[in-house]
């Protein structure tokens, strides 16, 4: 059992020191892991939940008319309810299990747009989208003859109400936008965006890949129409993700993938499809993955988002303060650490991000370097690539210090003197 099962009473520092023990990888490897936005590490309880599924409940859900099969089905459907409650969705059948956020976005882009978009309709995406929330719409536009339009942000990542309102026309059908940017860490006001869109009958698709793991997300309060996220970025295994969709849309939309379990009946000439959510879950489901995701959610709930945010913000504040003192470091996006949600992308004058990552790696520090799957944003910001650290609650102050110390030495290692800054 993981340490967090105990009631929380210790002071934060001690509490998070114990949390650290829930992650075996940190015991086994010398590793300062600061690439949490790419994928998170997994606590033991999540790995155990998956193993337990295979050792006690493993059968093909929905298919076996035997006890084990019923257990597998129950476990899977309970996981769906856990996700439903976590997102504050109205109905469990609004939760579709997918492989990852990318698949969820493709599902909507295929199913929704092929049937609801016409020539000349307009799709809006923000310029800060991850490729996974950009390419599916770029392609949908090509397929359907719709027009793709970009919602721009400023250098801080701010998108104004005006910019949105000016972009929307009576041909706009859908706005696809991320809740938290994976490059700038800024948060978009989805509630306001949904309100503006809904006044105009426009559907809102939200990318929660970077938000759902870190802040409480209430789809009913935000009133967004679709939301996706990936399990692997929030303590769960790879291969499981979620698409939330409002019931009335999911019911109207045609299925995306076809096969076993998504039908009521099949004949030579056609098929009657099952009701949601099964209509969108063709083939054998990843029940063990869903169960492990549910366990990850329980783990997060037990710590509580309040504590998680407090911790992640404290580490972000520390990192940004220290980084700003290093000559040549330029942080992308907002000044205020509270607008970063643990994500800090930066450049270091004269040193290419790949070299930075490589040198940090020599000190066992794992960071991301490159375009972060957001090439149009980087172009918009006028940087060709950047280095990114991304923080999770299980990181430590000491890790941040290790990173800062290593970063401070890089320009010297690359042959620059202290005064070389342009």
């Amino acid at each position, binding site marked *: 059992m993981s340490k967090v099962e105990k009631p929380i009473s210790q002071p934060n520092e001690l509490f998070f020191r114990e949390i650290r023990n829930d992650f075996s990888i940190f015991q086994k490897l010398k590793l300062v892991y600061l690439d949490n936005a790419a994928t998170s590490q997994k606590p033991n309880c999540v790995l155990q939940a998956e193993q337990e599924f295979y050792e006690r409940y493993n059968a093909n859900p929905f298919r076996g008319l035997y006890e084990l099969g019923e257990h597998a089905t129950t476990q899977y459907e309970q996981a769906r309810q856990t996700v439903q409650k976590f997102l504050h969705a109205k109905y469990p059948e609004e939760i579709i299990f997918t492989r990852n956020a990318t698949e969820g976005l493709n599902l909507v882009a295929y199913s929704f747009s092929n049937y609801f978009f016409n020539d000349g309709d307009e799709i809006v995406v923000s310029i800060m989208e991850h490729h996974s929330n950009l390419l599916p719409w770029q392609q949908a536009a090509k397929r359907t003859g719709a027009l793709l339009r970009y919602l721009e942000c400023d250098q801080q990542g701010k998108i104004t109400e005006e910019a949105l309102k000016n972009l929307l026309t009576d041909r706009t059908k859908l706005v696809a936008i991320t809740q938290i940017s994976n490059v700038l860490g800024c948060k978009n006001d989805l509630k306001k965006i949904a309100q503006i869109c809904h006044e105009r009958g426009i559907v809102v698709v939200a990318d929660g890949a970077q938000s759902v793991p870190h802040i409480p997300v209430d789809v009913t309060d935000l009133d967004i129409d679709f939301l996706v996220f990936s399990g692997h970025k929030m303590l769960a295994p790879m291969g499981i993700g979620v698409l939330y969709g409002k019931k009335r849309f999911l019911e109207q939309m045609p299925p995306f993938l076809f096969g076993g379990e998504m039908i009521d009946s099949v004949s030579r000439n056609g098929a009657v499809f099952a009701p949601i959510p099964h209509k969108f879950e063709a083939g054998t489901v990843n029940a063990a993955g869903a169960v492990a995701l549910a366990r990850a959610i329980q783990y997060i709930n037990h710590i509580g988002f309040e504590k998680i945010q407090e911790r992640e913000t404290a580490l972000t504040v520390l990192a940004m303060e220290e980084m700003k003192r290093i000559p040549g470091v330029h942080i992308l996006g907002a000044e205020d650490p509270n607008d970063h949600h643990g994500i800090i992308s930066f450049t270091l004058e004269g040193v290419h991000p790949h070299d930075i990552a*490589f040198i940090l790696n020599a000190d066992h520090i794992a960071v991301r370097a490159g375009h972060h799957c957001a090439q149009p944003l980087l172009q918009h910001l006028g940087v060709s690539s950047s280095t990114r650290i991304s923080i999770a609650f299980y990181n430590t102050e000491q890790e941040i210090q290790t990173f800062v110390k290593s970063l401070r030495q890089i320009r010297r290692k*690359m042959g620059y003197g202290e005064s070389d800054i342009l």
Partner: protein
Amino acid sequence: MENRTFYNEVLIDHNLHPAHKHDLKHANLILEGINPSCGDDIWLKLQVENGQVVDGAFQGDGCAISQASADIMLDLIIGKTKEEALELADIFLRMIQGKTTEKELEKLEEAAALQDISHMPARVKCAVLGWHTMKEMLKNESN
């Protein structure tokens, strides 16, 4: 991974002070080399006359390894014949795979500073970018 020692003086120097990073008006061979996976992007420009590399330069964007490697390469091949340049490329690419003799390595002069890259799969592409681009240019020209 011993990259503390990897960014050695040779590399750092060629990266900070590349002798050949500029435009080349008289170039008669120009080719872009790209590493899609990491975004390195160089334009290699050569002036080849009577089968000889008379002059060369590069421009573009990339990590220290791709930049230094291209600069070192140009140091080596300027003044050489096409065949010699291609042979050097061949040796360099084999060095990266760990398949060279000591004697061959000597021919590479400063480029041998990149030998250790073979242990770092993610950076191999950066080191060979310039060389691959040069090889393609000269080979195509031969045909």
